[in-house]
């Protein structure tokens, strides 16, 4: 497969994978640690959405499905399917060190391991997923916080994970 097309497809798959899993496991609902709370209210102050802000704060403060997807892609790139499983354990340890129960991170890493392994059969290499995940996380954390937080907030609303905090 053409490399550019592959990276675009991989980034779309990675984006959906980590946003859906993180939202399902309640990242927009509440800040896990103080840092996530500060990020959430700071984004709200700059015209963003509070649920999306908590989502961004939470993925910044602990390895959730975003980091899980990236590290699992790297693991599969280096050691194949088993590398993804090692990455899952590493993400889980990272979660616990960051005061996070670890459901989102490990689920994201496991699903990414399966997706990347299956993707290699249709020409999507793990390297494309690594690049794709970096692009996917840049669209959330690196371009414009207020608009990305509004998008994350609307996804949270659809999945019934909107925060009750004001």
């Amino acid at each position, binding site marked *: 497969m053409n490399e550019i097309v592959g990276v675009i497809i991989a980034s779309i798959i990675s984006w959906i994978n980590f946003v859906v899993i993180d939202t399902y496991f309640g990242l927009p609902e509440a800040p896990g640690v103080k840092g996530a709370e500060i990020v959430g209210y700071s984004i709200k102050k700059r015209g963003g959405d509070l649920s999306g802000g908590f989502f961004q704060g939470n993925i910044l403060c602990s390895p959730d499905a975003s980091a899980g997807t990236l590290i699992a892609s790297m693991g599969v790139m280096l050691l194949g399917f088993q590398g993804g*499983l*090692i990455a899952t354990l590493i993400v889980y340890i990272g979660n616990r060190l960051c005061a996070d129960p670890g459901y989102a991170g490990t689920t994201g890493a496991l699903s990414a391991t399966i997706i990347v392994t299956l993707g290699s059969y249709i020409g999507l290499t793990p390297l494309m997923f690594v690049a794709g995940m970096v692009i996917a996380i840049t669209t959330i954390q690196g371009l414009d916080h207020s608009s990305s937080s509004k998008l994350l907030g609307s996804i949270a609303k659809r999945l019934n994970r909107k925060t009750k905090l004001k």
Partner: protein
Amino acid sequence: MIVNITEMYILLNYLIAIIVSITVALTLKLPLLPEEPRRFSWTTSALFPTPIITIGLLAIIYSINFFWICDGTVLAIIIAILSGLSVKYLFDYIFPKPNIGESNE
């Protein structure tokens, strides 16, 4: 011992390890699932994180091409039993729960 084992055997060994680890955890009276609301629960259970630790440790050992006897099945069972025991007796010592007052204030 370096042995060439097919991927099918390796997947089967992971499956055996997951089943054994859940069985050991249930035998040690860990709950099957964390209590509600699950996504914010800190309770260690038979389904999470016991199989995660089992397959992670097994993957580390398999990835250095150490399979030992019976194409790695015995190793899978041993790791699964050790993981179940460690989740029950060692886990809170290695990964203590954070102080809720500190983390959620």
